[in-house]
């Protein structure tokens, strides 16, 4: 089975490709470029096309399938249009699947399940990454606020942190928010 993975995110495409490597008799192709997309698909001649829902070229791809349906390679949307559960799961995961007509559901379903699993895993990774980056940014803000207090008020580092924490507690806010306020105030007062 020839599977084309179309994704503007090269890293996600790789994650999905690795997941599908577990399937027997499958050859996967990754397309990340918008230009020449249709020509590329034509060249690959896939049995299955996986595309992320956020890809602006979905309408272009569907148009191509509509036109090619009139020619030679009929392609149906999703596995089996009556299989609503599979469709809902794939939309939840953010992936659309196009399958050449006549490919049986029992061959497609494991593939789709794997792809959905990989899309979900990738989304979780991104959420975790965003959280980690958020935590890092907060840590940097707090350090910067501490330095401002140390310079402007002659605090030691533990004193500066204690001051931030006390203010946060008094105001019922997070330390990171107070740190941001200190930095903003410093900028307004003409500091760096």
């Amino acid at each position, binding site marked *: 089975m020839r599977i084309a993975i179309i994704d503007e995110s090269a890293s996600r495409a790789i994650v999905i490709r690795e997941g599908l490597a577990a399937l027997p008799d499958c050859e996967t192709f990754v397309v990340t470029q918008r230009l020449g997309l249709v020509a590329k698909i034509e060249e690959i001649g896939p049995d299955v096309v996986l595309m992320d829902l956020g890809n602006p*070229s979905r309408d272009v791809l569907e148009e191509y399938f509509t036109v090619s349906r009139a020619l030679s390679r009929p392609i149906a949307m999703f596995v089996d249009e009556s299989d609503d559960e599979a469709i809902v799961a794939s939309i939840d995961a953010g992936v659309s699947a196009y399958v050449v007509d006549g490919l049986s559901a029992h061959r497609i379903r494991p593939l789709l399940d794997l792809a959905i699993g990989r899309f979900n895993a990738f989304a979780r990774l991104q959420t975790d990454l965003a959280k980690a980056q958020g935590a890092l940014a907060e840590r940097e803000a707090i350090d910067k606020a501490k330095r401002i207090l140390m310079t402007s008020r002659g605090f030691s580092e533990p004193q500066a942190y204690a001051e931030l924490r006390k203010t946060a507690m008094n105001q019922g806010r997070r330390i990171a928010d107070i740190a941001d306020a200190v930095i903003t105030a410093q900028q307004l007062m003409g500091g760096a």
Partner: protein
Amino acid sequence: MTTQEFRIGFLPLVDACLPILAQEHGFAEAEGLSLKLVRDMSWATVLDRLLYGHTDAAHLVAPLAIATTLGRGRPARPLAVPFVLGLNGNAITMRPDLAARVAASGKLGDPSLAGASLAQVARERLAAGKRLRFGVVHRYSSHNYMLRYWLAGCGIQPDRDVEITTIAPPFCADALEDGEVDAICVGEPWNSVAVERGAGEIVLATAQIWRRGVEKVLALREPVIDERREAVEALIRALVRAGAHFVDPANWQMNARILARPEYLDGHEDLILRAISDRILLRQHGEVVRYSDFMFQYREAANFPWVSQAEWLYTQMVRWDGLKFDPADAARAARVFRPDVYRNALIGSGEPLPGASSKVEGSLHQRTAVTAQQGSITLEQNRFFDGRTFDPANLSAYLASLD
């Protein structure tokens, strides 16, 4: 009053304005609704989210609502349109070398004259084996039907003399620049983006092809119209108020700023403001020209879902998909537009309601007062560029007349 959540899918285009502004200005809240706007990058995904329940309603190209109901391209799922989000607002932008041959610089072209010049170029290119290529945003879009109507009306046979292909709006400027296409028909702000980059020049507004052409609609799964009737009617009232706000010049700047925000269009405020205020920059470093009713979001009961407009779209689907005219399909297409729901939502309000639900499209050559169920309505001229009229009483005769 408890607040009901209503999720609405949209593409980042200026004519997604009414649901966005209904939420931002509190018109939805006043009706007991909280709108959650869900942004996507392709009509396919907007439609998938609607069909599989990620959204309750969608900003949709009108022909796609009918195509989905009739099962064109995928299994049929009935949709309902109780509200038209706007008329026109698209333009045809050509690569500068082509634009120079088709229209005089500095003003919008005349549709018939520009079409005649274009036909000449199309013949040359056909003879040279390099057909002109046009990009539209979707097979089932008003853009595609307006462009084809114009081309065919000027003696250019789409699919034979010229190619028409699908291009995602954000890539229209790139496609012009790379020579992937010679011209695009797309909504704002994407024409202006191409103009600003020098990739293209605006030659025509689609409002010149059909002065009052149906564009985007609010589409729902048909069962939802009944299951959530109160919320749907509340939404219609909120959207009408957003429409009145949107067309008031006092609000243009503010609304452009809201629409430009990252969570909505994520675009350039000035370009959006131009579209809202009927001003168009036709070419890079040129002068902004004024073209009235470039977009049409509120006046003349613009949001009323005229059954005749759904029927006109069906005739174009028959024409360009090469279908056989089918009276049963025509009736199903007509039923997609739901003036009954629109009327029910606004009866007793100050909003004008037309007396009829269907009209002969393109028949008005001047301001005309029409009978109203409520309030008073005067329609301005609504002609097609070639002077044809569309009488919904006889669809097959209309189709035959187009051959």
